[in-house]
């Protein structure tokens, strides 16, 4: 089937119009740096606060509990995507789809009053982020 010049022009115009009214956005946000060091080398009841600082660096948060301090290390990532369709003349939004994944790697080290490690918990969740 052959398209005439006018038909092809109309098709192209329609295509161009479609590009003007719909848009897709992909965004990536990163807060902080990936966790450093291997917390598996920390030994409960043996490793000290100095060992932890040397291995993992400065914590993002230092919390106090009734039986000692807690160091908190986090690395936060967010993957965002959206699809928006707008009405071409008025600009009114016709359809929007948004998807937002916010995941973080968290490492918590608990100390007793004298600064000896009493507990370690680590959770790697940023690996679970979908690429798209």
């Amino acid at each position, binding site marked *: 089937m052959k398209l005439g010049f006018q038909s092809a022009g109309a098709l192209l115009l329609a295509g161009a119009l479609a590009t003007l009214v719909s848009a897709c*956005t992909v965004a990536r946000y990163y807060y902080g740096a990936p966790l450093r060091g291997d917390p598996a080398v920390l030994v409960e009841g043996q490793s000290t606060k100095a060992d932890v600082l040397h291995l993992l660096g*400065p914590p993002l948060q230092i919390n106090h509990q009734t039986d000692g301090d807690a160091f908190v290390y986090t690395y936060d990532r967010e993957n965002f995507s959206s699809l928006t369709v707008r009405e071409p003349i008025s600009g009114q939004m016709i359809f929007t789809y948004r998807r937002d994944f916010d995941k973080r790697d968290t490492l918590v080290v608990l100390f007793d009053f004298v600064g000896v490690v009493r507990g370690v918990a680590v959770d790697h969740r940023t690996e679970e982020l979908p690429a798209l």
Partner: protein
Amino acid sequence: MRRLTLLLLSVLPGLLAGCVVGRVYRDHPLDERKIAGLQRGVTTKEQVLQQFGPPQEIEARELVAVGVPFEQFLNRRGEKLPVDSLVGARYFRYTFSRGNAFGIILVLFNYLDFDQKNDSLVIFFDMNNVVQDYAFAKDTELLPRFGFWSR
């Protein structure tokens, strides 16, 4: 003529593209030579303040909160100590934050990338206001310059 029109219409969205590059700087970079001069058990809080200036974060804690009895420090029972004797700063935190933003704005597709990292120095003090320990991380070096292209 028709081919030219087709070509023009197909490249038009590409011509309408835009690029965004943003940089965010908060506070000032930490001097690594000064950090190297910190000595555990030697450097005092006063020296830290002289060298690094006012910290962004000061953590202080009342002695009573950690279960340390302070009655022994009182000359007479019932006497109240000055607040600065009861409260001791346990650590100072110095930070330098940087954020790099990168975006491609097309007609059909937009990509945005924002990365924020910090240089952080935490200095712990003992009860005599002497440096007990410290830790420094220079994470701003890990920032990608142009989003995913630099990762």
